[in-house]
């Protein structure tokens, strides 16, 4: 593809390719896109159920990551840290 045909290909907002959209998702969710790019992306989303689903999946991934529970501490580790606290209390 020549440089010119590349430019022409992306001249209309509707022609933002899905392959490019998936790379823009984080910037979009982070709110760091320029107005023109954001409008172009939103225009694409309006007409593309697949990218809309992809974006929804990314949002869901983020939400579910926020619910990942960390492993509980072992009783040994808890005891060690309680010791550490008590040693520190006697330091001063």
């Amino acid at each position, binding site marked *: 593809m020549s440089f010119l045909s590349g430019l022409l290909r992306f001249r209309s907002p509707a022609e933002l390719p899905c392959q490019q959209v998936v790379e823009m998702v984080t910037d979009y969710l982070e709110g760091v896109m320029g107005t023109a790019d954001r409008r172009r992306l939103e225009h694409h989303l309006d007409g593309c159920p697949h990218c809309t689903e992809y974006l929804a*999946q990314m949002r869901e991934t983020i939400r579910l990551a926020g619910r990942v529970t960390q492993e509980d501490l072992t009783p040994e580790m808890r005891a060690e840290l309680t010791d550490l606290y008590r040693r520190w*209390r006697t330091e001063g």
Partner: protein
Amino acid sequence: MDADATLLARLRDGDEQAFTDLVGRYHSAMLRLALSFVSSQAVAEEVVQDTWLAVLRGLGRFEERSSLRTWLFTILVNRARSTGVREARTVPVADAGPVVDASRFGPNGAWAVPPEHWAQEAENRIDAVKLSALLRGGLDGLPVRQRDVVLLRDVEGMSSAEVCQVLAISEANQRVLLHRGRSKLRQVLESELGGGPR
């Protein structure tokens, strides 16, 4: 006052339970983070313990210009990083390439193998325990710097500014790591819930 500010006040009053609560809240995430800088679980545990001691010793000097959480994670990363340097541990450079396999798009860049619909169904289709294990496994499988960023941003719920401060990276770098890490976690869910090449 938020939960951490309350804990800080109690800690300064010498409340042992406040320390236990703080440990319960952050120890696992700290351990996970330390592990991406040093070579073994044992060394990581040592780094986290050292951090707790440094936090206790620093309480009097802590001026609350950042949150308690940011402060303690920053101490942790500084210690883990310098320990990792002493161990001469090198971290592989971040991977490049697209976040969705090119084979899923046609020649015009439109989806050829589009995502299947599951965005609102994940929790109905996989039980909470399995979902948590799946995502934890996915996190563990990420390149370490991506894992650090996703862990702090999405699991711990830090802001991008906090993450940049803790990891001493630029906003742009943080965003690239976040993008790659989150995209891979999505793929982990997709491989369980359907969609994409089998």
